[in-house]
């Protein structure tokens, strides 16, 4: 692996989250400088900042894109106890010429009493639904009943997890074989409550979310959690960032016909890695769920892969080399390549040679 490009992010403080849109042509960055920036990728692969605006009155922890079926919509959540929904509006023609676009706030969700630690859109087949979780231990599910009117959101569910929540993950599967499912991770230091990962499932009869499973073996603080894309399997795979990287398999047990409660699962641990030495802060699956990436206290990003025998191994490490990055940052938002420029010229040379031969 190599660094192909380096983009001068130009935030005035730490970046806490970067999110790609569905097609990988736009990205959003959010920071402790309380702003969100939106970047567009040109055909040549360069990133240009097309919007930058103040979104909250505290550090912005996460930013996420809605599915493009709902338009160009972002959600952000912050230390300031709120989450917000933003929509891009097509600007004036001179804005377009300058390559700028405008994002306006459609709604602010103020129900949380503490820092909102995660915000995620539900899978699109559920409609336009947004979920937040907070340090106050509540997961909130909001819905915009009219997808053409993003200023109207109603709080559909409040799930009380009893523990301070740090992360949520929706099971992305749209299969009718199982109801909507959401996993919640807690970084609560309270040792009274054992399991720090809870799985909630939607019940069609009660029209509520009920707890289906608590992973009792996860007793340390959980910082991130991610369901893997389903790909036609009957079981679910969940990755957890805690004091190590853990991958669980949740196998739904067959329901008796009379049972109306949530699904019971057989929980198996598939892999556990402590290479990061201490806390693991993020886990995320790539699009095809063939690779898992994790980031930890050792300042590295590690990539994990299973072979066809389901044996997991580390297949790559990304690590800071401690060197200073040279080159001027230029204009705010301007593209800046160091190592990348060598690669770019090489790419051109290769294109030339390949085309010519």
């Amino acid at each position, binding site marked *: *692996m190599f660094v192909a490009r380096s983009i001068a992010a130009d935030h005035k403080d730490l970046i806490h989250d970067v999110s*790609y849109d569905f097609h990988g042509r736009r990205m959003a960055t959010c920071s402790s400088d309380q702003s969100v920036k939106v970047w567009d990728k040109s055909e040549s692969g360069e990133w240009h900042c097309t919007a930058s605006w103040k979104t909250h009155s505290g550090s912005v922890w996460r930013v996420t894109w809605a599915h493009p079926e*709902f338009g160009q919509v972002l959600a952000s959540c912050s230390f300031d106890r709120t989450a917000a929904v933003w929509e891009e509006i097509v600007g004036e023609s001179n804005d377009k010429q300058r390559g700028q676009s405008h994002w306006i706030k459609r709604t602010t969700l103020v129900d949380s009493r503490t820092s909102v630690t995660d915000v995620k859109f539900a899978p699109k087949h559920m409609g336009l639904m947004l979920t937040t979780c907070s340090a106050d231990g509540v997961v909130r599910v909001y819905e915009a009943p009219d997808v053409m009117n993003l200023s109207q959101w109603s709080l559909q569910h409040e799930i009380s997890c009893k523990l301070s929540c740090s992360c949520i993950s929706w099971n992305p599967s749209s299969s009718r074989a199982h109801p909507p499912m959401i996993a919640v991770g807690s970084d609560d230091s309270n040792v009274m409550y054992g399991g720090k990962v809870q799985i909630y499932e939607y019940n069609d009869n009660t029209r509520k979310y009920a707890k289906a499973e608590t992973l009792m073996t996860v007793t340390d603080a959980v910082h991130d959690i991610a369901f893997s894309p389903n790909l036609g399997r009957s079981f679910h795979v969940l990755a957890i960032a805690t004091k190590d990287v853990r991958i669980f398999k949740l196998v739904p047990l067959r329901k008796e016909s009379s049972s109306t409660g949530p699904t019971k699962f057989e929980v198996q641990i598939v892999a556990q890695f402590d290479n990061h030495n201490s806390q693991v802060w993020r886990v995320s699956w790539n699009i095809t769920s063939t690779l898992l990436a994790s980031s930890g206290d050792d*300042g590295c990003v590690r990539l994990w892969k299973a072979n066809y025998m389901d044996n997991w191994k580390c297949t790559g490490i990304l690590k800071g080399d401690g060197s200073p990055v040279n080159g001027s940052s230029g204009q705010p938002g301007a593209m800046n390549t160091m190592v990348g420029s060598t690669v770019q*010229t090489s790419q051109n040379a290769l294109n030339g040679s390949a085309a010519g031969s």
Partner: protein
Amino acid sequence: MEEVDVEPTTTPIPGFDSNQKHLGFVWGPGDILVYETIYKASGGSAGGCPFVHEVRKDEDIYSPILRKLFNESHHIFVGLQRIREDLPSKNKKPQFVSISKNYRSVIRACMEELQQVAGIPSLSTLKGVISMMSHLSLWCEQNFNIFCTLFVVCDPLAGSLVLHLLDWVRLHKADVDEKAREVLASESPAEHQAYWDVVISYVLQGRMDEARQVLVKQAALQPAARVMFKLLDNLLMKMPIFNPGETQTLTEFDVKWRHWREEVDHCLQDQSFASNRHLEDICKILVGDEDVLLEYKELLSTWYHFLVTRLLFSHPTVKPTELHYYAQSSMHMFLDTRSVPEPLDSILLAAFEFDIHQVIKDCSIALNNWWFVGHLTDLLDHCKLLQSHNLHFGSNLREFLLLEYASGLFTHHSLWQLAVDYFDHCPEFGRVYLELQIERVPLDTERKALKVIRICEQRQMTEQVRSICKIMAKKALRNNRLGSALSWSIRAKDAAFATLISERFLQDYCAKGTFSDLDLIDNLGPAMLLSDRLTFLGKYREFHRLYGEKRFSDAAKLLLSLMTAKIAPHSFWMTLLTDALPLLEQKEVIFSADQTHELMFCLEELTSGKSVPTPDRPMQVLGYTPPYPLSNVCFPFNLLILFYNML
């Protein structure tokens, strides 16, 4: 055998210190973005963050060259899938062999380009990566065929194993021909520095004719030693080579060969070549003297060349089942100090043991790409050489590897179309993988969107079609391209969105007095029925057309039916009634008495039970202002109706 173990590589990220900061990341299509951050819950400030780095796989560096490889091998792959299952295997075998050769030649072409590229000065910084890829592709090219030969072609009893191995080794050492040309072209070939290297290399490869041709030059220089040279030349000429095509049996060959070997041995004992070290060495090689062979390590260069040469001169009729024994010992003898074999060496050992599964497993790990192992496994699977039990993940090895390969292709902006065919030929998971990944293809242009949609439609992926159309409709609406938005909504069969866009059209009409995108609306056809509002839009436009063509009575009938059949939304009735006015004002009678009554009825329905807005407060329905306030219309309307009734 133990699985090969390859250490994960560490990629350095410039500009930050792992000891002080965390490395944040996000997956992208074909890359991973990383940035420095600090993960903690509090909201404090910790200083700015300069860069977001885009990290890609090494393969991406030379992807323009690989593109040709991917395209051409895709072609071969698809052809292979089409070979009929029911053909008898003796018909299929030659086809498989030919396919294996085709794969090899596309790798060769790729490898040659890579080697060319490695020489370009501006790419010197990437030389390491390119040369590694070049080395790997060379390995792939050299070995794709031998695996197929060993596994597919080799008949255990035929005795031709050594011949196949010789062919393979000659591939590896093709440089000897170049050296030979250089030597022979020089002024005095026999005195050329590389002369004896060339001769001995040819002997080591069993190419006796070529060796003799070069030896002749030396013989010419030393007329006094003519007898000695003639003797060696004779020995080389008479060396028996097993020819599977001839009627000679293996035993007969064996006898002949032993006879010949004895003759060579005699010459050695007689010290016939004692005066010329080189000739003596050649003689010793001919009897398979391992110590002498090992003295020429540099010319052999690999342990497997040593293996093949050893077999040629000591065990030319070696059976496939005995091969691995000689392979192990050859490797140990050649490599002496090294105890653990390199991953690529392990793969060859596994091949010599005819352990196909081990070969595939190790290739998956050791080679930096899925191309080789994916296509090889697919070919072996077609030859029915793989046990097809289902693995842990739910399908077989072939499918696992092809899914990996095709998924990698999907991140290329143009190669994703090749991946579709690979997914099509993965019966268990191909479809679901395709469904997941095809949705992510960026819909940069309408043309591209249509291409993606066509692929989905061909496979009845209706949800993906709907989703893509919806995304395009939404994008068009955002950019105020109502016509495009409408046609995409129709294609998505999205009634709700079609309704929304139809209302926008109607609003536009009320604001400007004209319709945009007339072509589209005029030719809606049965699509009109998707939503009530859309039907109304179509019919309303039809009314305008009829009016424009002066087909007044048809227009009138249509207009009326829009209200009586409840196709028109109530909010629009005012506009319709206003549209009726010019018809009523015509000299000739257009509305029949019955129709006029119906018109009145509609007007009453509209005004009854609702607060009639004052002239100062125009009726606001869906943001549209009727051209006349209600009361204004009613008055002339009623007058006209009265007038009509008088006729």
